[in-house]
């Protein structure tokens, strides 16, 4: 089972609902966030194009943050979700430096925190908080191993890209362009 997320940049309006929903759902302390929204504008007035992406931890298959964690606090559970075990993390922050997407942060209580694909919801069969709140329904979550899951069909139908694939981490957040 390989969970992944697809974000349709054609529909995302950059409203940051996913950011607030994640903060509220997971009690992320104010001043920190597990996901964020990027607006990439290119061209010159009036020939412009704008791509809006909601970014978070990519739950990489070859995750540098899991490789470099000395206490195995940062580990991959089944479904490919990268989680941090709060009681095993000593806060050496090696994983923060090793993540090319800057998707981790130090929780005021000391351990390192990150997006967990809302594993407590996914285990109950629900979608992550950000996917279930997105007003433009532009975020899809599912199992890419299962060929007829919604996300697999989308990845077959649509053009997509991932963030800095050349960093070698095999990210699992796909941006439909």
């Amino acid at each position: 089972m390989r969970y992944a997320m697809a974000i349709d940049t054609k529909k995302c309006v950059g409203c940051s609902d996913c950011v607030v929903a994640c903060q509220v759902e997971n009690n992320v302390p104010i001043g920190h966030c597990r996901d964020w929204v990027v607006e990439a504008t290119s061209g010159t007035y009036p020939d412009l194009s704008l791509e809006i992406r909601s970014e978070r931890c990519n739950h990489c298959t070859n995750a540098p943050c899991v490789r470099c964690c000395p206490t195995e606090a940062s580990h991959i559970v089944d479904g490919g979700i990268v989680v941090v075990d709060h009681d095993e993390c000593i806060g050496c922050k090696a994983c923060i430096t090793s993540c090319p997407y800057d998707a981790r942060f130090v929780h005021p209580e000391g351990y390192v925190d990150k997006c967990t694909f809302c594993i407590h919801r996914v285990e109950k069969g629900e979608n992550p908080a950000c996917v279930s709140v997105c007003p433009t329904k532009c975020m899809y979550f599912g199992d890419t191993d299962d060929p007829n899951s919604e996300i697999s069909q989308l990845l077959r139908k649509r053009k997509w890209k991932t963030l800095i694939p050349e960093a070698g981490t095999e990210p699992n957040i796909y941006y439909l362009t």
Partner: protein
Amino acid sequence: MIEEVIVSGRSNPEIDPYLHVWGWEIPFYLFIGGLVAGILFFSAVYTIRGKQDDYPTAVKFAPMFTPLLLALGLSALLLDLSHKLYFWQLYTNIRWESPMSWGAWTLMIIYPLAIVWSALWIKDVFPKWDWKFKWLEDWIEIIRQYQKYMAWALMVLSIVLGMYTGILLSAFNARPFWNTAILGPLFLTSGLSAGAALIMLLSKKEGEKRLFARIDLMLIGTELFLIIHLFMGFLAGTNVHIEAARLFLGGEFTNSFWIFVVFGGLIFPAILELLELRKIKIPHYISAILVLFGSLALRFIVVDAGQASRWLY
């Protein structure tokens, strides 16, 4: 014009606007690791070659500092941990792929060895010293026979510790400036030259000072070569590496690196040592202190520059 802006106000402390998770603790800890590796390496090598009497400070006196230095280094590392109460988790498993893990284990092994090693020599350095307890005396005598093997073990472990400080950084492919294999040997040589400098500083015997001055010269030579090799490697790397190199060739770290680390920490002390070897009267502690300072500054700048180099926006 490409404009990539985070519009949802991401401002995670220590990560935005650019990464600054490792303050002064980790560079200090790496410097201490290098210094201790240098001292122990020299003292172990010269014990194996049976030269402990020709170079008393190197073999006997310098290791005295290592337990204290290691304590300092470890406390700096502990200070840096943000989840301090769980630090013992480091020793719940060995993770070969994570330099931080086998670095911690090397420290765990090297620390008692350093204490025992300095305990062995304490008698020669402080004759008046007596172990209050009887069983301690004969316990040390028993260990004395294994001194040879301990020396070998210490030599290998100090090399591993010296290399670990570099490889810890080079394992992060997310930070282009750190992601070069040359950092390992560079930090090893820098640690050895710091060790040699400290020994030069402490030693009273003229012969010893001259030997370590010559060793230090050679180490500084290799260090300079490795630094040039580092930058040539970057300039021939991918564009993120080129950008990382540009931080030092015109970017924000240019003058602080080339002036403090390269000139102040390497070239100038090398010239001083050369003059010393040519018998020109120069107070020897200047070059030693400069080398130590250069080595510390090298680590500070490498850690800061690494966190400033990035892939994304």
